[in-house]
Each structure stands twice: as C-alpha cells, then as structure tokens.
C-alpha cells in the first residue's frame, strides 16, 4: 500500500495528459494512414481527398500544441485553397479517374527503400537528441496578438518579401499557363 501511495505521489507532480495523448494517437494514426494512401492510391481524386485528411489532422495537431492561429490558417489556406487548386489541376489535365492508369513508376521499391533508410536515420537522430524532452506542463494557447506582434515587428521585412513572392508567383503562374 505505501508503494502505491508513493507511485501516486510521484504521478501527482508529473501530470499525464491522457486525453491529449489519446487524441494525438488517434489523429497521428489517421494522418499516417492517409499520407500512405496519398502516395499509393491509383485514383488522383482519392489522393486529393486523402490529402485533405492529412492536412486536417495537421490542423488538429496544431490545436493540441496550442497554436490556434496556425491551425485556422492551415484550414483556410491548405484545405480551402490549395486542395481546390489541386482538384482544378486534376480536372484541367484530364487525369484518369477510373483508377486503371498507372500512376507510380515500376521501380517504386527503390523509392521505398530510400525513404525507409531516411526514416531510420531521422528516427535514430531524433530519439538520440530529444529522447525524453517534455513539452511544458502548462501549455497555453498562444494569443494571436503575440503572433501578429512578431510578424509586424521582428519579421516585418520577411513579411514584405513574402508578399512580393506571392505577387511574383501570381504573375509567373499567369505567364507560364497562358495560351499563346
């Protein structure tokens, strides 16, 4: 009985976020499954829909990490704009929708080997470097005001450069895709 109490006391000053960990596990499993389907499915439209699931899962992880503004931006920009752009691209290139066209190369096994080696390397390095590092116990949502203060204060010049980049990408996309 004392041992049990001791264990409870140890757990008391190191709270375990059961709900957050379960949510993380479910969302992470969904993201990994959907990501693998994105790169293996034979139907381009299905791949776009699976991509939506990965992006929505990433937004949920951002909320778990307390980054609400990034999560909202992720939903707005990625799911709202980029996936629609992908669907337009699929439609305009008359991609095969029946699912009988070969979308992957014949030597996909070499690519799988490459990415598995990369995964092993990354996993080893991450476990070695950040083994048991914990996120702060009192993880609070980041106020959006702090993010905007940082953008328009410290990172004002990069922000303007990004807006110029978007303008250049807009003009470049029109010039490249124009029919002449």
């Amino acid at each position, binding site marked *: 009985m004392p041992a049990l109490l001791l264990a409870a006391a140890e757990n008391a000053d190191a709270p375990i976020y059961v709900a957050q960990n379960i949510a993380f596990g479910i969302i992470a499993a969904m993201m990994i499954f959907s*990501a693998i389907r994105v790169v293996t499915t034979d139907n381009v439209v299905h791949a776009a829909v699976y991509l939506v699931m990965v992006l929505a899962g990433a937004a949920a992880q951002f909320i778990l990490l307390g980054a609400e503004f*990034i999560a909202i931006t992720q939903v707005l920009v990625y799911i709202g*704009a980029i996936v629609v752009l992908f669907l337009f691209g699929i439609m305009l290139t008359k991609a095969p929708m029946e699912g009988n066209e070969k979308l992957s190369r014949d030597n996909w096994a070499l690519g799988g080997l490459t990415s*598995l080696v990369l995964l092993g390397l990354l996993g080893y390095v991450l476990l070695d470097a950040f083994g048991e590092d914990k996120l702060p116990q009192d993880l609070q949502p980041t106020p959006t005001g*702090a993010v905007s203060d940082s953008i328009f204060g410290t990172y004002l010049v990069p922000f303007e450069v*990004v807006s110029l980049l*978007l303008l250049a990408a*807009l003009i470049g996309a029109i010039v490249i895709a124009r029919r002449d």
Partner: protein
Amino acid sequence: MLLNQFLLLAAVLFCVGVYGVISRRNGVMVLMSIELILNSVNINLVAFSAMTGAVSGQVFALFVIAVAAAEVGVGLAIVLAIFRNYRSVDLDDVDLMKG
C-alpha cells in the same frame, strides 16, 4: 506530452512525402507529395515553438504556408504547360534535357 512524438510523426510524414516524390509519375501527384513534406516541416516548427515558448516558430510556419501556396500555383501552371505541349502529365515523357 513528449516533444518527440510530434517530431517522429513529422519524420514519418516527411519520408512518405519523399517516397511519393520519387515514385509517382503523375505531375500533380508529385506536387501533392511536396505538400506532405512542407506540412511535416510545419509540425516540426510549431512543436519547437510550443517547446521553447517562442512565437518565432509559428511565424515561420505561416511563412512556409505562404510559400507553399505560391509553389503550388507556379507548379500547377508548369504542369498545365507540360500537359499542353505533351498531351500528358507523365513526367517520364518529359526528357528534353536528358543527355
């Protein structure tokens, strides 16, 4: 929550994206795989931001989202140009600069 669980999830997504870039023939599918890679980078940035309490990681994630939007716009324009010239988006057909 451990920091590593987010980093390992991002590593898995990154490797899946790399596999997609290598093994897909369709140009649109390659762009989708690149989106997977950029997303895993975003998860890393936000996780480190939560770890250190600094906002810079989130600002960089926003920049990555903006650059990804620009990249998809130009990338799909290039795929459309390829489709117009070759009547297909199979990247194996595009071997003009192959020695």
